[in-house]
């Protein structure tokens, strides 16, 4: 064979590859230019035509409506400690519910702790008051640091963060002393462990304290997943392994089955692409979560946040009919993971929702499969 022809053929392939890459990028530019800004995802949809709230009616501050929790928080901010105290104590020994309710009160305490001071003055040894005080400080530390990456966080912010976080550790220990059976003070320390970069060994000791008190605690697992993920003290592998084990060991029907979806999203976000949804393991996790959600009791306090992560996972997996159904059930809220990771949660939520609807239309509006 003629040498030149052979070589020429080779370079020809190179040139073709280069040209096709160029064309692809041009196509991408055109698609991007053609995409209507608010809806994203390819084309504009009218959400109301699908039983969904329009973009300008979506609440970006919460995952769902929770009047009782919001009332407790408002009372706390007004300086009343009795209402929040009763609200928290009504959770009894449903530790995950207690943890969820604690969130509203800690949020208030991080803003203004007058009610905590009054509560502690009235009942110095009240474990709930000590808990709200401790977790309020953890939350305050987070507010001081801010949510941006280390390179966008100032010395002043880090100093304040570390000062308050160190104080909150003592407060957590005190709360644990007052209520030895309650896992909450230990769960609050998971955030401290993350912020102060505890070693894996030290973290495992803390985690053992949590699971010995509440083995399938949803909030604790979500907090620990953060410690295990690559942006904090772990890695993709560690995070997926943790989530997989938690889901596998949870009782049948437990919403912990959705924990792997939070891990999948952490990776999606960090990698900046959706390749992970093509893995069979992801498909299996999405399916398992979808089944558990379909069977969950309607008023379960963890259901809304699980629907948000599930809706995104279904959309990214191309299961548009199921995704559309979840978006309908979510209602006019987008203050939840995954959307809150983005600069504009509303845009991320709207974009995913529009993609799901458009995909469902393109597929000829298939019915949601039976569980």
């Amino acid at each position, binding site marked *: 064979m003629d040498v*030149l022809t052979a070589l020429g053929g080779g370079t020809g392939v190179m040139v073709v590859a280069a040209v096709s890459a160029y064309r692809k990028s041009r196509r991408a530019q055109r698609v*991007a230019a053609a995409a209507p800004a608010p809806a994203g*995802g390819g084309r504009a949809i009218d959400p109301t035509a699908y039983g969904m709230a329009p973009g300008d009616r979506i609440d970006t501050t919460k995952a769902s409506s929770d009047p009782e929790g919001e009332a407790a928080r408002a009372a706390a901010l007004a300086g009343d400690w009795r209402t929040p105290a009763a609200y928290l104590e009504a959770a009894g020994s449903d530790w995950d519910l207690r943890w969820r309710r604690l969130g509203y009160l800690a949020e208030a305490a991080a803003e203004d702790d007058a009610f905590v001071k009054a509560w502690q003055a009235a009942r110095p040894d009240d474990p709930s008051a000590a808990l709200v005080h401790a977790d309020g400080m953890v939350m305050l530390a987070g507010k001081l640091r801010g949510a941006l990456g280390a390179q966008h966080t100032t010395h002043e912010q880090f100093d304040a963060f570390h000062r308050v976080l160190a104080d909150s550790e003592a407060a957590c220990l005190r709360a644990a002393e007052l209520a030895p059976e309650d896992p909450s003070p230990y769960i609050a320390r998971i955030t401290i462990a993350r912020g102060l970069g505890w070693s894996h060994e030290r973290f495992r000791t803390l985690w053992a304290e949590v699971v010995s008190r509440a083995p399938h605690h949803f909030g604790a697992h979500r907090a620990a997943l953060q410690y295990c993920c690559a942006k904090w003290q772990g890695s993709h592998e560690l995070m997926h392994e943790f989530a997989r084990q938690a889901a596998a060991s949870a009782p049948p029907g437990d919403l912990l089955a959705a924990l792997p979806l939070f891990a999948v999203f952490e990776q999606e976000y960090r990698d900046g692409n959706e390749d992970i949804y093509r893995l069979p393991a992801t498909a299996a996790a999405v399916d398992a979560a979808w089944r558990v959600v379909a069977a969950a009791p309607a008023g379960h306090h963890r259901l809304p946040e699980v629907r948000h992560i599930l809706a995104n996972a279904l959309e990214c997996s191309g299961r548009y009919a199921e995704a559309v159904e979840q978006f309908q059930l979510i209602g006019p809220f987008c203050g939840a993971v995954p959307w809150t990771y983005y600069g504009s949660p509303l845009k991320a939520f709207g974009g995913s929702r529009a993609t799901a609807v458009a995909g469902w239309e393109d597929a000829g509006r298939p019915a949601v499969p039976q569980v």
Partner: protein
Amino acid sequence: MRTAPRPADGPALLPPGGIGFLARGLLALALLAGFYLLALGIVGGLLAVDVLLAVNSAHPFGLGGLKVYAVSAVLAYPVLRTVFLTHRHKPAPEPLPGLSVGPAEQPVLWERVRQLADEYGTRAPDELRLVAEANAQVCEDVRLLGLLPGRRRMELGIPLLIGFNQAELDAVIAHELGHFGNKDTRIGGLTHSGRRAVAHTVHALHERAARNRAAHAAELAASAAVRRAKGRRTRTPQASGGVDQVLARIFAAYAGLYLTVSAAVSRRQEIAADLAAVRLVGRDATASALRRLPVIDTALEYHLHRYAMVGWEDGLLPLPGQVYGGLAHLLAEPGRREELGRLEPEAADAEHDPYDSHPPLPARIAAVESLPPDGRATTGSGPALALLSAPERTVAEVEAVTLPPESAGMTRLDWPELARRTGRARHAAGVDALRQAVGRDLPAAALLAEVMTGHLREIADRLPKSPQARAATGRAAREFTRPVLRSALSDLVLIVLADAGTADWDVSWAEPVRLRLPDAVARGLPAALDAAVADVPDRQPLRTLLADAGLPLPPAPC
């Protein structure tokens, strides 16, 4: 003698007077020629492929042939462009460092240098310069690629004159004369221009690669646009720098070889120069000078950082001559001597860099000390600074030409006053901030009285804030304000105590400039400040502390 890139660096070999000069010159030339040969080789190789294919092909101008020619042109172009066609700007000659001193001004030092040059049997330098670094070096303005000798220059660092005795300085001078005698400085220019040519090419190719990378990244970004349109974060694969990146790597590899070989040669030159010093001034003085070099260098750094330049930001400097001259105080302090003495073993542990033009000091010291004793003493000779006539004025003159120009207008103070003014200046910002927050231009004592009786929360809210602190609300805002208020209040208290003569800053050569407070104040102040800035502020402890220190304040309103 030890650090700093030196134009005098260049290949040298083995004992003085050996095969040295010609061999080293040829090596330097070969390394430089090799660089151009590498470039020509790449271009020539591509050309050869084209020609061979064209000759052996039935269709030399068919589509395949044209593609190959195009690809070789794409590869050859950047090489031709960066190696042969770009005009390399010869850097504008920088003004020579330091102060040139003639034989009339410094007869004793010149006599010393000339005498040592005579003993060694080499031509003495034509110029002597005193510089600011703890270092010495020589260079020679050669002609015809180093075939003809030229004007010789020697630089001696003032810190060495301050820190060494005369025997040690002799060793330094003898070492540098060794470079002249060994003709190291003749080859230095050639090596230097070779290094410049290689570095220029690698740099230019890197720049081209960076431009390619930017263009490629833009293309990749476009393909991520779909995900972005969904409101999502995207991350695209690493863009590549293209052919220039590959070429840059090839030339960087050659540059690595170049530096490794030339550094290896120049390390041998250093050993040879050390041997020259041993011959001239004795084994022990040479070893002692080598040992003490890093000590003086460290002491100089420390002196400049902690003493001489502490008032720089506030426009304050020590008296003329003391910026460098103060090093003598530091070296004379017994505690410091001991501390610095402990540094030596660490210097010996330092890892060796293959591109270093000097062998590791421990190796040089060991080489010198392994020679038989020659009975020549190191001690008994006075401080080297005594070789200067009018040493104080001379050091001040070196300062004048080596300090940055803005030093000219600065206030010069004696050491105690410098410490005091610098100490006060460190606390001025907090006092000024409180003054503005209170809104009245009060003297410090009146300002403190105002702060101790006024609404602390309101005053704190008016202190300057970072954007993050301004954006915060409620408890977070309080947490941001707390350290700002505490620090400003602390500044104010210290200034008031200093004004009353209760606190003062003093300079000690045994430890850094420090604030001296009465023991009771030093013990109680942190807790008193904490109480004053607590959520429920309690200013009583601070009030008591100040009263005990003899500064009663007007009674609090509540």
